[in-house]
């Protein structure tokens, strides 16, 4: 299996643990990724607030580059990139005027975008292309006893839910169960973490992160699993500020791909747990299979 790959800026910066853990996990499952040559920033939420035509054009340049690879399927692990690339695709297909403007703009630099690349999230690929059974077979260090709160956040299921339920997504729950972990049921799995408001308007933004952490702790989670670099950053980085405003709610937040790496027994430089500010210490390796009592 081979996919075009759009890492996005965060995965090369503060969210590097996501890429560092996801790529080896996918390789371990026989998936090959081809990073787009000279990709540009997708525009994220900020560009949409300035000019939607330009936002679409910035995203569409990447879609055009993806088409050049001939792979037709592109992986976009960051939730904001995933949303923006899908949104651009929708705009180009729904609005002929937008399609014309963006098409001509791309043409001026010799690019072309037909809008037929399917932009996919790693969870979608893992659960629907690779399959939970194949994943289960690779588990050598099951995460028995580990209580994980799966956190999907906003932008992978809203507004374009293509691979999971909008109100109650379960793909990550099922994935974590396949790794042997215990999934904590909590109602906040798709609530907003505050996005960039944690930095721009902390009085409002941080409260949302605080609520998530507090609820996950209340429900007994050992760790939160996330799919997005901004969610990870928000839930991991502001503990001192949250403690000062409300109460301490320390809890590690890692990418689901880091938990997969642990369960597959991948080396520490591929699970990169040292990237967390609240360090996650995985439970000791469980007793060999069969020794367990139900």
């Amino acid at each position, binding site marked *: 299996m081979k996919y075009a790959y759009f890492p996005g*800026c*965060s995965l*090369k*910066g*503060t*969210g*590097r*643990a996501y890429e560092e853990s996801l790529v080896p996990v996918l390789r371990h499952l026989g998936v090959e990724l081809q990073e787009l040559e*000279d*990709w*540009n*920033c997708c525009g*994220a939420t*900020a*560009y*949409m*607030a*300035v*000019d*939607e*035509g*330009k936002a679409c*054009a*910035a995203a569409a*340049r990447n879609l055009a580059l993806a088409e050049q690879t001939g792979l037709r399927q592109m992986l976009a692990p960051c939730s904001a990139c995933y949303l923006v690339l899908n949104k651009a695709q929708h*705009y180009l297909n*729904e609005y002929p*005027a937008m399609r*014309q*403007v963006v098409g*001509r*703009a*791309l043409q*001026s*630099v010799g*690019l072309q975008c037909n809008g037929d690349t399917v932009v996919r999230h790693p969870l979608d690929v893992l659960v629907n292309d690779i399959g939970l059974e194949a994943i289960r077979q690779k588990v050598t260090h099951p995460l028995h006893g580990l209580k994980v709160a799966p956190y999907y956040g*906003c*932008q992978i299921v*809203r*507004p374009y*839910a293509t691979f999971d339920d*909008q109100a109650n997504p379960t793909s990550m729950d099922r994935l974590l169960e396949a790794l042997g972990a215990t999934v904590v049921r909590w109602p906040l799995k798709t*609530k*907003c973490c*505050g*996005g*960039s*408001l944690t*930095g*721009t*308007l902390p*009085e*409002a933004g941080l409260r*949302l992160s605080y609520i998530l952490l507090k609820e996950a702790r209340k429900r007994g989670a050992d760790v939160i699993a996330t799919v997005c670099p901004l969610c990870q950053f928000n839930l991991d*980085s502001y503990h*001192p500020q949250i403690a000062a405003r409300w109460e301490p709610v320390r809890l590690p937040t890692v990418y689901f791909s880091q938990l997969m790496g642990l369960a597959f027994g991948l080396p520490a430089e591929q699970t990169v747990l*040292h*990237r*967390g*500010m609240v360090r996650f210490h995985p439970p000791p390796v469980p007793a060999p299979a069969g020794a367990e009592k139900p």
Partner: protein
Amino acid sequence: MEIKRTIKYEADRVPGFGREIMSVPGCEALEHCIQCGTCSGVCPLSIYMDYTPRQVMELVRSDFKNEVLQSHTIWLCASCYACTVECPRQIRITDIMYELKQRAIKERVYPRRFPIPVLAEEFTRMVHDHGRISETRLVSRMYLRTRPLAAVGMAGLGLQLLKSGRFSWKQDRIKQREQIARIMEAVDRENGKTEA
């Protein structure tokens, strides 16, 4: 205490504003709003807003341009899309909020000290110049322009990032930078704008 009139007068309207917004791709369905308030109910940030999302929808539709463009609401919207997926009339509230942000930035009427429009501007400039975002640089610039003193308070966070190997001062850039600039200029040309 500032005493202000709290009801709106017909004369405050800017006729045509609502139509104009509703003609933007993605914003058309606004005319079907039934003022049910679902959007305000699900919005995780409505408790901080001066106008709730439902009120913003009606203000737009009724041409109260100045009120919405100067509201805090549009900057508090975190683009979580909760309202958009719950709206019984399929109104893309999040996209309408984006459209309002765009206009507020263009007309420079956003509330002073609000770092969000500054972040959006710095963000687009960085994409335009380099093709990619270097988060550390972007956030530092935003702080310097809006709350230089608060930047000091963020030093601890920077240190933590440094320790976990996630801090990078390097400006990431793409090879074909001129492509981005040319694409953006072409969009302006196509939209009939002649921006300096």
